[in-house]
């Protein structure tokens, strides 16, 4: 009975606060990072990069790419070309659900804004300052005082 009561109490604590409490002292990597790969039409790349950046994302890079649909399919659909852009973004796992929800909504509603996004988990990062930059951990940066 006592065990049950104790378990019930922990469930009322917000998940983030609970996770923070469980971290060992001196843990320098409290946030998991993932690489979000977003493939969109070339002319919508900046639009989506700006949207993703608004979710505490400090590092992104874009590269031109092309789809692999055959010429006859493009002609049949009335599409001019298959030029695309791939956006690689380093995102925090705890923000990923919000980003994916936002992207799903935009992919459905923005005209000519269809795309695909997948995320791949990071297993390691070199350098604590690089890590802090990637996960936007501003509290770890020393001030001027």
């Amino acid at each position, binding site marked *: 009975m006592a065990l049950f009561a104790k378990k019930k109490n922990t469930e009322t604590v917000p998940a983030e606060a609970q996770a923070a409490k469980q971290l060992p002292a001196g843990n320098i990597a409290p946030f998991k990072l*993932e690489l979000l*790969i977003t493939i969109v039409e070339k002319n919508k790349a900046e639009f989506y990069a700006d949207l993703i950046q608004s979710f505490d994302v400090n590092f992104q890079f874009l590269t031109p790419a092309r*789809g692999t649909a055959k010429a006859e399919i493009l002609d049949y659909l009335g599409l001019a070309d298959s030029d*695309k852009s791939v956006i690689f973004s380093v995102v925090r796992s705890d923000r*990923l659900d919000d980003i994916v929800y936002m*992207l799903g909504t935009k992919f459905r509603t923005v005209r000519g804004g269809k795309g695909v996004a997948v995320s*791949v988990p990071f297993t390691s990062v070199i350098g604590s300052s690089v890590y802090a930059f990637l996960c936007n951990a501003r509290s770890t940066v020393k001030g001027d005082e």
Partner: protein
Amino acid sequence: MSEKTYEMIFCIINAGYSETVMDAAREAGARGGTVIRARGTAGKEAEEVFKITVHPDKEVIMILVPKDIKDAVLEAIYKSAGMSTAGQGIAFSLPVNKTVGLQ
């Protein structure tokens, strides 16, 4: 957001052979892919030791596939565009956590 499990196949191949890879992948059940241009960086010394010439112009092909057909797609790519072919391709897959926009 999709609950089906997917994997992302990356195939690095000599420039000009992306259609070969995609034809093989489609036959194994893949729907489509995205091609990025890239540049290979194998060292000259390694090229001499292993007696291979690395074509610097490369293409990276990203193909998102359901996990259950991943092995079939990789095998098809290996057979049609592996290291023993003119495309000199290597391929690997990474697990993906979240996917969006596949419908």
